[in-house]
């Protein structure tokens, strides 16, 4: 427990106390929890003095639950987004969340879209990002390469916080097995996606296809899950792979599509998009970010933001959640530590 500084407004002795709210976060926390000192202030018989102290206490509590306090060393938070869908749609979803975090943290939260999945690690470091919403494989990669820490991930509107990989074809394609896939065109999302590449490669290897260059006539990357689904729908590719959430969203938008596509393989569940942050951020800031996210659904404004984001709430995330992704990468013959 930290020492409790005094304050002019409640009659305490430390003249620096008020400014502490705009100073370091550690001082603010110290104010609230120094119960011994607070108790001693209410032991006197001076009713006026007691009132002042009560007002002071309320004031400090208000300070602590409001966003007025800031993190002196941290001027802003730069959060990266993986381009998992149409970037305009994606920014529409994330902007309200960034604004909400800015307000609650008292620090400007800026968003930046990484140009593609593959350069996530380099760009995270070169642009000095503080965190990013990573998909499962890139989160794994970032934990290994950047030592980031997973803190929270959204619970989707259907109550899930995980995602599965799908391998799908058009129903009228005649493709039913790996044998039928020979010399066909495959579309992936990006090399650095668990559901849009790693799972698919693992599936191919488990079914005897170790060299995709020779087995398929062509393969390419669309850069987004939606595009992978549309490429198969339009017959621009024969076999596609994408995350279940994106696949389902397209079907929800146009249920007729369900009659046109056939899912041939489904991966095990892996964590959906997860906010991972730099391990060396101030501990109090990390704690506060997590608190704000995990409590959004209890706050009317937070609820509105969640609605726009397309989530019920945020839940806590941890490193152990990502074990299935390590396993998947292993099956795909991908050594995360060796990836450059």
């Amino acid at each position: 427990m930290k020492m409790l500084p005094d304050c002019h407004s409640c009659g305490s002795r430390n003249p620096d106390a008020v400014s502490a709210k705009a100073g370091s976060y550690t001082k603010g926390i110290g104010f609230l929890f120094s119960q011994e000192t607070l108790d001693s202030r209410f032991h006197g018989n001076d009713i006026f003095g007691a009132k002042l102290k009560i007002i002071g206490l309320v004031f400090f509590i208000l300070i602590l639950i409001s966003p007025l306090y800031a993190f002196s060393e941290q001027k802003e938070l730069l959060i990266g987004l993986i381009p998992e869908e149409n970037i305009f749609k994606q920014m529409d979803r994330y902007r309200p969340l960034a604004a909400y975090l800015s307000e609650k943290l008292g620090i400007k939260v800026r968003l930046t879209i990484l140009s593609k999945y593959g350069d996530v690690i380099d760009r995270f470091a070169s642009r000095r990002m503080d965190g990013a919403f990573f998909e499962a494989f890139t989160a794994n990669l970032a934990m290994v390469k950047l030592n980031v820490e997973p803190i929270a991930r959204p619970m989707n509107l259907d109550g899930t916080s995980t995602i599965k990989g799908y391998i799908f074809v058009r129903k009228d394609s005649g493709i039913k097995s790996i044998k039928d896939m020979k010399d066909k065109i495959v579309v992936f999302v990006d090399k650095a996606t668990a559901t849009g590449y790693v799972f698919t490669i693992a599936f191919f290897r488990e079914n005897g296809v170790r060299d995709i260059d020779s087995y398929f006539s062509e393969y390419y990357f669309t850069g987004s899950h939606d595009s992978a689904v549309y490429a198969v729908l339009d017959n621009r590719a024969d076999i596609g792979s994408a995350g279940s959430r994106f696949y389902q969203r397209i079907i929800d938008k146009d249920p007729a599509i369900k009659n046109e596509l056939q899912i041939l393989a489904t991966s095990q569940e892996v964590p959906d998009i997860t906010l991972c942050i730099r391990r060396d951020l101030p501990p109090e800031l990390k704690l506060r970010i997590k608190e704000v996210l995990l409590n959004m659904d209890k706050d009317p404004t937070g609820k509105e933001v969640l609605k726009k984001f397309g989530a019920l709430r945020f839940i806590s995330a941890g490193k152990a959640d990502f074990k299935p992704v390590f396993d998947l990468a292993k099956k795909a013959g991908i050594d995360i530590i060796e990836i450059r």
Partner: protein
Amino acid sequence: MTGNIPYYNEMHHAFVSKLQREGYADNVKIIIQKPYPDPISWSNAVRKLVAADVDLIVTYGAPATLSAVRERIKIPIVYSGVYEPIAKGIKSKNVTGISFRVPVSSLIRYLRGVTTVSSLGVIYNEAEEDSVHQLMELMRLSEQYGFEVEKIRLKRPEDANRMLSYKKTDAIFITSSSLVNMAADSIINIAKANRVPTVSLLSGTTGSEAIITLSVKPGEQGEKAAEKVIKILNGIPAERIQAESSRGTELIFNMKEANAMGLRLSMDLITEATRIIK
């Protein structure tokens, strides 16, 4: 080759170029027939080629292919540019080729992204089975998506102006019929003047382009047909050469005309388009 449409001309150009590149230009004589799109003309064209004692017949498009198959000739036939649902029905041993599969439903989805479709005019030719198949598919989709299909049966290319003048629809679907595509420029221009968006299954290559086109590249199909012809010329029987479905589907968005017509700019379409005309 039915009619004289840019799509088949480009396919043929790619076919001949491939033969030339592979060294078959000097020892292969090509006789071209361009029958008018009607059953008698197709049949006569095939019979003329049989009378000319050709070693092999190459057909472009479903109607010409089906006419050749129905003549029950023994000469090997290599088809190209045949709508896959029709190609699947061809079972003759002396026939092989390359078909294309373009989902009509995808075109409807993209169309609904740029405009509200309550009524869809479908221009087709009753004599061309691929065109009729597409009409039937659109009628099935109309129930799913809740729009009315206005059948526009074209008998002659020059009738396009008259047929469209009294049909008021929200959009026009140009099927892969050769006869309809002979009138494609007129159809697109009339629709443009009336601010009605058009969608097409065959790219216009040199002519006008519909607002949205989902089409298989004709050049690729021509080259594939040439590869099969070379195999036959080298003594491999047609029945041992597997028929295949073509690749290289293009999604073309004519953004220039869409803007001029004040249509919605669909982000899905802009993102997915393989070619945007600005």
